[in-house]
């Protein structure tokens, strides 16, 4: 369990604008010198581990090949990583929520990303449509309305004609093939934020193409 340091000035600034006593106590303890800080880090790690285990429990059905020990290792690793992230970003805590809620999100994120990566470990990430049949408009169905059929046809054309190759790959992987964005970010050596920006721009182009409001 590694830790990071936080400047006293930054902590004074944060605690000055934050009214919740429990959160203020967390911040004071985590910025205290010596054993008090170590004790606070240990308590925070316990809290993060509970959050990580909560997330693992919610998602374990998606990973039937993993054993109980694997899940707990993953939860512990998530709590470790979340603690490091929190201590490094402690001076960004604005007090808009309770400290525990703010801290939980780091543990949940670490666990969710690790679980999504594990679920796709060893799997090929499809960047091309597994099938274009979903856009096919020549298979009339009584449940398929003409309006949706026409829109799907236009979208199929738009994906081919108005998107850049990179936008097309990202849109197909994320929106059609349901590849998790963290997994795709790893494979393409980029970030979640950058990929979502690409997806957003692609969607915007397609909305213009089909005449929908942007």
């Amino acid at each position, binding site marked *: 369990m590694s830790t990071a340091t936080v400047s006293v000035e930054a902590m004074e600034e944060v605690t000055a604008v934050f009214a919740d006593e429990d959160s203020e106590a967390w911040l004071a303890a985590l910025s205290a010198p010596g054993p008090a800080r170590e004790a606070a880090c240990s308590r925070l790690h316990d809290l993060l581990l509970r959050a990580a285990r909560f*997330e693992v429990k919610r998602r374990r059905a998606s990973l039937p090949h993993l054993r109980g020990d694997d899940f707990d290792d993953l939860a512990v690793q998530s709590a470790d990583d979340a603690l490091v992230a929190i201590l490094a970003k402690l001076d960004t805590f604005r007090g808009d929520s309770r400290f525990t809620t703010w801290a939980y999100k780091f543990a*949940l*994120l670490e666990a969710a990303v690790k679980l999504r990566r594990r679920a796709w470990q060893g799997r090929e990430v499809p960047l091309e449509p597994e099938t274009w049949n979903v856009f096919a408009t020549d298979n009339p169905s009584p449940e398929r309305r003409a309006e949706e059929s026409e829109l799907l046809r236009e*979208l199929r054309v738009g994906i081919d004609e108005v998107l850049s190759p990179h936008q097309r790959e990202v849109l197909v992987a994320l929106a059609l093939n349901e590849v998790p964005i963290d997994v795709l970010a790893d494979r393409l050596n980029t970030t979640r*934020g950058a990929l979502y920006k690409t997806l957003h721009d692609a969607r915007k182009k397609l909305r213009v193409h089909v005449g929908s409001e942007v």
Partner: protein
Amino acid sequence: MTMNEDRKLIKAVLGPEGPELTCERCFEELDRYVELELSGADAEATVPGMRAHLEGCPACHEDHESLKALVGSTEKPA
């Protein structure tokens, strides 16, 4: 495909209407947004664009669902 499947596909491809937050901003605001939701306040009014982003980004949507479930199950909102 059924009409519902068509609509789901169209929504996945076109994404949410209107302005939305980025993933980074979503993560920054997630704790505040969840506490506001759990307290019954109008979270979207305080964090405009969050709802649209959660509709358009499956990963952030999952993170939001998890935090809301965890906080809701362990503590009462402030």
